[in-house]
């Protein structure tokens, strides 16, 4: 029985390594500036965790095989070794804290660095079970919004106040369009419950909390259409709360943003088909 269990633990170590490193399932392709840094930190952690995991399972398996009962022999009588305890405490403490500190770098860059002033601004207004994106239009300034002006039948889910000069050229849509290789600043809001903005290809996730305006910025480096999902349980149709993020070449993006809001909607539909 002991041999079998020991062998199973060896197999567990090898099998898990193959599952993780086999390449069948991995993060989707990364398209933001945080992606490579997060991936590097993940890989660093994977090495530490992988070695510790395999070492622990194999040591356990080895002990199980080696120290099975032999006749009436007695076990070694020992209550432990302070020297050993101290050694492995210090080693794990150093490794774990080092990992924790290394893990803060991308975090700090994502959350604490200033948003570049030229960042394209988009307001994200989440609601059950839909993403709304409020675009500033050619003037680059987001107009005022008011909850009382929300009019679902006119497809105004954000409540843009057209009396505000900055809001004259604003547009809103349920798809996110951004330019490639240019910084973007999203302001996340929610109209009802907590949602979470998650584009796996960006490697980042941020809750949209009612009552808060949470900012996040990133730069997408590859043209294409990427799925956007909600990562916080928001009600019965949570899994249906999906949309797309279109990363467009400069000219297409600029053309799109220069359109009056009705044409904007039509063009976005065409772009969604194309990508």
């Amino acid at each position, binding site marked *: 029985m002991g041999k079998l269990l020991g062998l199973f633990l060896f197999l567990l170590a090898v099998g898990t390594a193959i599952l993780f490193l086999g390449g069948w399932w991995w993060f989707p392709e990364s398209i933001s500036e945080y992606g490579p840094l997060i991936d590097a930190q993940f890989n660093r952690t994977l090495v530490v965790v992988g070695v510790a995991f395999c070492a622990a399972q194999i040591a356990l398996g080895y002990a199980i095989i080696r120290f099975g009962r032999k006749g009436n022999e007695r076990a070694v009588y020992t209550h432990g070794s302070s020297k050993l305890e101290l050694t492995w405490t210090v080693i794990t403490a150093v490794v774990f804290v080092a990992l924790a500190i290394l893990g803060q770098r991308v975090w700090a860059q994502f959350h604490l660095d200033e948003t570049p002033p030229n960042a394209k601004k988009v307001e994200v207004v989440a609601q059950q079970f839909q993403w709304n994106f409020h675009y500033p239009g050619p003037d680059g300034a987001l107009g005022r919004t008011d909850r009382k002006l929300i009019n679902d039948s006119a497809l105004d889910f954000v409540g843009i106040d057209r009396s505000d000069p900055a809001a004259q050229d604003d547009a809103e849509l349920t798809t996110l369009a951004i330019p490639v290789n240019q910084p973007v600043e999203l302001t996340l809001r929610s109209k009802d419950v907590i949602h979470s903005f998650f584009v*796996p290809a960006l490697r980042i996730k941020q809750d949209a909390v009612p009552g808060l305006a949470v900012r996040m910025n990133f730069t997408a480096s590859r043209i294409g259409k990427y799925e956007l999902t909600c990562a916080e*349980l928001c009600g019965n149709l949570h899994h249906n709360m999906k949309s797309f993020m279109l990363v467009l070449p400069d000219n297409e993006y600029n053309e799109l943003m220069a359109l009056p809001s009705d044409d904007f909607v039509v063009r976005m539909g065409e772009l969604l088909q194309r990508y």
Partner: protein
Amino acid sequence: MADVVHPAHGEVHRHEPPSGFIRKYIFSTDHKVIGIQYWFLALFSVILGMLLSVLMRLQLGWPGEEFGFLKTIFPTAAEGGTITPDLYLSLVTMHGTVMVFFVLTTAPQGGFGNSFLPIQIGADDMAFPVLNMMSFWITFLGLVVLLGAFFATANVIGPIGGWTGYAPLSALGEKAGPGQGLGVVLWVSSIALFCIASLLGALNFITTMLNMRTRGMSLMRLPLTCWGWFTTAVLALLSFPVLLAAGILLLLDHLAGTSFFIPTNVLDDRQGGSPILWQHLFWFFGHPEVYIAILPGMGLASHILATFARKPVFGYRVMVYAIFAIGLLGFFVWGHHMFISGMSPYTAIVFSVITLTIGVPSAIKTFNWIGTIWGGQIRFTTPMLFALGFVSLFVSGGITGLFLGQTSLDLPLHDTYFVVGHFHLIMGVAAIFGIFMGTYFWFPKMFGRMMNEGLGKIHFWFSFIGVNVIFIPFHVMGMSGAPRRYATHGNLEFLSNVMPLSKFISYAVFFTVGAQIIFLINLFWSMFKGKKASDNPWEATTLEWTIPSPPPYDNFAGRVPVVYRGPYEYSVPGAPTDFSMQTDPDEPKAAEPAGDESGD
């Protein structure tokens, strides 16, 4: 071991059991009966929770497919014979709540703790027997109320909010959609009752262990099981009141129109509440809760590994300190559940560093478990197999915390299947293995008969292989980006290669759940037909093995046991047997231990 009491202290004060059936078996104040009541409540709950997960896996493996039998079970919620998203999320919510509260918190502490803490410290009952009875019956009431949530609304089968019940979704009532009405009210009420019961239980455990230890039972002679239960009780005492308060505030938001968790301008005219406040309060409880579920199992694993390796626990003192360290640090890491919640990113950095340091005492425990069996003479009984499985699962489940505890890696991994895999291995399955090892180990003492070893071993193998095959692949699903609490992943293109894996996992779940029938057969067959158990069938050293199986009503038949040594004196050189009972008065010729730490 019949005469375990030193003649000088041999005065006898017998307590007679009550005679009526109701006082003896229903409203009993006997800790052993209450322990068994808790244990059966957990057994009922775990079967229910498991069946809910089978239905969830049916939907995840075959999204939207029609199954005729569903119409029979859920005539309104699954009218078409398919699991609707509403039904799926109700199953998620009820599965989580039933498992976390009524299984993982109930069996290891209420079940085994009640049954064996008083005996292991040489007491004839808990400090407050009536309070103990109340704890159980309030827990029972909590379960009944929770089950009521299944029937709260006609077309939805229960609340939709996950076991974490994030506000404002859980606070707004039916405005927030189906499954947010009466079901949520019953769900919160059930949790509030559970908090009260756990609080009473915790007071009882702490008092009992500190005040009722028998002669010679110094703190450093306590079995590690007792340290596990004690620390768990301290955590429960400090964390459940916070959840109770949060639950009451949520109920008020729900029923009385207050606005603790509902911010301005959300669906109605209330103002000024904070959704993030709910998360702080919930996780201030929720993180210690993880340790409430696992610490008794950690104590028990040490106990069983020493017993069947026939070796003293490696580094007993360090094990005690590590349990304390985990318990203490467990109160300062709740924020790692909230990195992406919108709270200050600076706070997140502090929570992250503390979170990774909690890995240190956890690693110490793993080293010492391997150290305990190193150089042993391992007897591969069923409880020992489950204890070894526990160590393996503890490693697999705990180590992925090193990813999730890092702020930056939480950005992609938060709320994906990576998290689901992590907490199922560490808090779910490892703790369940703790319950299994306790059951196989103490069954002879609880019911007076042995469980069948052959069936036990088959059960171990099927379960151990099964849980690894189910939960390790969850991690790569999470890396691929699969969000949790999704009724299906089929509508996301980037997850198309995850779907076959998901179906494979569903098969593994059906197999593993099916294998639990072996356990149930073994359990009930052994209860009535098993081989009669001797007083000390495992040749173990602690006090519960000095008295008959099952023990008499007053445990030590009115005598006061006297303790002469530490709890894990196995293979003492020169001793007549390879186990020296804690109550053996004859000091064996003291041979110097090979290690440099003293025994007690």
